[in-house]
């Protein structure tokens, strides 16, 4: 089939699904709505596969399918087309989006069946996929921005899906506005790049990037990429704009899986990977990205340890993992970042869907203190979740191990990395292992603390099939990117992903050849840290559940601070939002009401007063009027005579 037709179907299929479900938004027929939506995304998935296979068929240096539909906006020299292209990077992304997307749609069909707004839900979900595809495929930054804002919008709609709850509506708003901060920075980044390169076309920028020379430590490239990165921190929930993501768990769980774990939140990393040629020539930005990524990974992981809400734990875990990805791209390991995007999409989607299955079984209970011992009630969920757990804490040969290890190795080895970054990364890997094990223990293992009124049960097949598929992917997903050191040892297994991405990823300058023994050592160290903390967690939460409480009590202030998420929300409220609202009130009251209006009143009063004075001259007495005539006469004559 012609590529433009394929591309059109790929993009429009979810959009048409959105329209169909959008028009019949009141229907409660969840099977039909879910069917339409899943089919729409599945058609996209097929198109993606076809496009991807076409891409594979092309020679390595020409792997690019570019389709232009129409000229979108052209003013003077600024020209943006409604054009899309698939290359090695976006090819992987569309597979993830439509593949994981169809699974999650399928899961949702069952999960949301009791909800009245199920059709509306599916229309939003399809709209999201549509926007995500635009984001990923757009051939210019502006087209990407269309999807960028579009997914933010869908996220807003889906987080606030149960809008009758004030908190949830507020969470949606928070997500959108926080994202908007990032978007504003993204806009500025685009302006700077346009001023520098005279185009917003991603390929043109990438090909021009090596010729650009950074003149100062904060030149156009650094500034531009920095702003783009701020945009990415908004979308991908990094410090300082990560605050919306934990709140975003107010949305339905499949949404958290699709949008807030697998796809949308990785848009920031995707954007940086796609623009890697300009990021690599802005080392200052790269440093900032790596530091922010590492800090986010550490901070979110530490918060994750203290949370009691199953989805909150996963949310902080997502923030932490996203931090990893930024750490990766920050040290120049773009391929590793994208690799982790992919594996993370598998196992985090799996875990979110698993948690959805649990929540579903527990009748909307999300507090892990009221769970425990669910293993025997829901075996499939447990086992799939178990595999996801192994993947995320980095047990070989599960998916997470390879991607995470590559990131840690690169953060040490890359000239842009440093041992400190590695240490932070390894520490957060340990924390990840700890809180994930804690989650496993409290939810599935140990004694049951389920209230009497709740009778947990395994979810129906429509929900477990996606779990199984994702679990499978979480196991094998990492095998396409087996690092050279392992591949070499086990008989020349190639790093498929690395080779695939090589033409579009700019290599790290001055990269020393890898020292295999050091790599093995670090790998062992990080694996050791992860397994020890997993073991400790198991001991704490299954064997002797009283210990964590004691530890928490002994370091109460610190625990409280972490449990309350370092009070960042409160800080933002205190230092930004409340003052802003207060200032708004003040400027309105003092400037509009009491200054400008008062001023106009004063002018009016002056005129009125002037009128009053002249009015008092109108005594009504004819003789006084006559006197005025006489005075006028005197004045006129005086003037004549004096002249």
């Amino acid at each position, binding site marked *: 089939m012609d590529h433009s037709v394929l591309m059109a179907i790929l993009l429009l299929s979810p959009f048409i699904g959105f329209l169909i479900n959008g028009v019949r938004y009141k229907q409660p027929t969840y099977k039909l709505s879910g069917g339409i939506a899943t089919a729409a995304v599945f058609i996209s998935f097929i198109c993606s596969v076809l496009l991807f296979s076409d891409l594979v068929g092309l020679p390595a240096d020409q792997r690019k399918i570019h389709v232009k539909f129409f000229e979108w906006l052209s003013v003077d020299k600024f020209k943006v087309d409604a054009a899309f292209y698939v290359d090695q990077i976006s090819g992987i992304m569309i597979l993830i989006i439509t593949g994981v997307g169809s699974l999650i749609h399928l899961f949702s069909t069952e999960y949301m069946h009791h909800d009245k707004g199920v059709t509306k839900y599916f229309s939003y979900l399809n709209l999201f996929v549509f926007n995500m595809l635009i984001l990923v495929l757009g051939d210019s930054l502006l087209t990407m921005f269309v999807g960028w804002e579009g997914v933010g919008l869908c996220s807003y709609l889906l987080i606030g899906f149960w809008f009758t709850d004030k908190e949830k509506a507020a969470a949606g708003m928070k997500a959108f506005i926080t994202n908007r901060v990032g978007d504003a920075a993204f806009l500025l980044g685009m302006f700077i790049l346009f001023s520098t390169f005279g185009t917003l076309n991603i390929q043109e920028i990438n090909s021009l990037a090596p010729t650009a020379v950074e003149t100062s430590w904060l030149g156009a490239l650094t500034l531009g990429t920095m702003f783009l990165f701020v945009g990415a921190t908004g979308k991908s929930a990094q410090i300082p704009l990560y605050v919306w993501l934990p709140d975003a768990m107010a949305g339905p769980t499949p949404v958290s899986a699709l949008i807030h774990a697998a796809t949308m939140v990785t848009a920031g990393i995707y954007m940086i990977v796609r623009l890697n040629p300009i990021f690599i020539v802005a080392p200052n930005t790269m440093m900032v990205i790596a530091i922010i990524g590492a800090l986010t990974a550490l901070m979110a992981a530490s918060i994750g340890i203290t949370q009691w809400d199953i989805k909150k734990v996963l949310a902080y875990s997502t923030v932490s993992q996203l931090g990893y990805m930024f750490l990766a791209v920050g040290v120049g390991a773009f391929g590793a970042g994208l690799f982790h995007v992919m594996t993370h999409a598998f196992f985090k989607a799996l875990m979110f869907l698993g948690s959805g299955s649990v929540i579903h079984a527990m009748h909307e209970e999300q507090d892990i203190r009221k769970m425990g011992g669910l293993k025997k009630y829901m075996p499939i969920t447990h086992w799939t979740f178990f595999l996801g757990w192994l993947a995320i804490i980095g047990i070989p040969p599960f998916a997470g191990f390879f991607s995470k290890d590559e990131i840690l190795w690169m953060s040490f080895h890359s000239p842009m990395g440093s041992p400190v970054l590695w240490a932070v990364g390894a520490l957060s890997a340990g924390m990840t292992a700890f809180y994930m094990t804690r989650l496993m223990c409290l939810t599935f293992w140990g004694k049951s603390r389920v209230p009497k009124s709740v009778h947990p049960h395994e979810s129906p097949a429509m929900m477990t099939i996606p779990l199984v598929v994702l679990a499978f992917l979480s196991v094998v997903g990492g095998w396409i990117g087996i690092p050279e050191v392992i591949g070499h040892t086990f008989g020349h297994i190639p790093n498929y992903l690395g080779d695939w991405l090589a033409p579009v990823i700019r290599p790290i300058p001055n990269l020393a050849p890898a020292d295999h023994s050091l790599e093995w050592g670090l790998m062992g160290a990080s694996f050791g840290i992860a397994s020890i903390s997993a073991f400790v967690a198991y001991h704490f939460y299954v064997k002797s559940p009283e210990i964590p409480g004691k530890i928490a009590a002994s370091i109460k202030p610190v625990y409280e601070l972490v449990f309350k998420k370092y009070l960042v929300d409160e800080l933002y409220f205190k230092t930004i939002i409340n003052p802003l609202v207060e200032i708004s009130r003040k400027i309105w009251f003092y400037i509009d009401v009491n200054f400008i209006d008062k001023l106009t009143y004063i002018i009016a009063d002056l005129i009125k007063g002037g009128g009053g004075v002249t009015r*008092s001259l109108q005594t*009504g*007495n*004819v*003789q006084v*009027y*006559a006197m005025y005539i*006489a005075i006028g006469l005197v004045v006129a004559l005086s003037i004549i005579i004096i002249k």
Partner: protein
Amino acid sequence: MPSSSFLTDISLNHYLILSSVLFVIGMAGVLLRRNVIVILMSLELMLNAVNISFIAFSKFTQNVDGQIMVFFVMTIAAAEAAVGLALAVAIFKRFKEVNIKFFEHLRG
């Protein structure tokens, strides 16, 4: 202008000064008196003063137009007196008052 000839040599200026003095007297009457009728009389004085100037000019420029103007002025003065007095009568009939102070309906 030497004072000796001022008394003996009657020029246009003499008439004009006479006219202006009479005019000012009339104006003083209009401004200062309270009785509507006296004010009307003062108005007549002013008109007469102007007439003197006209005639004087007419004489000294040998132009008959000045006299015609006086003729017009007198006619209008008569008309004005008639109307003014009619108004005074009307007002007096209504308010039993001729003091101008009582008629301040034009107060702003």
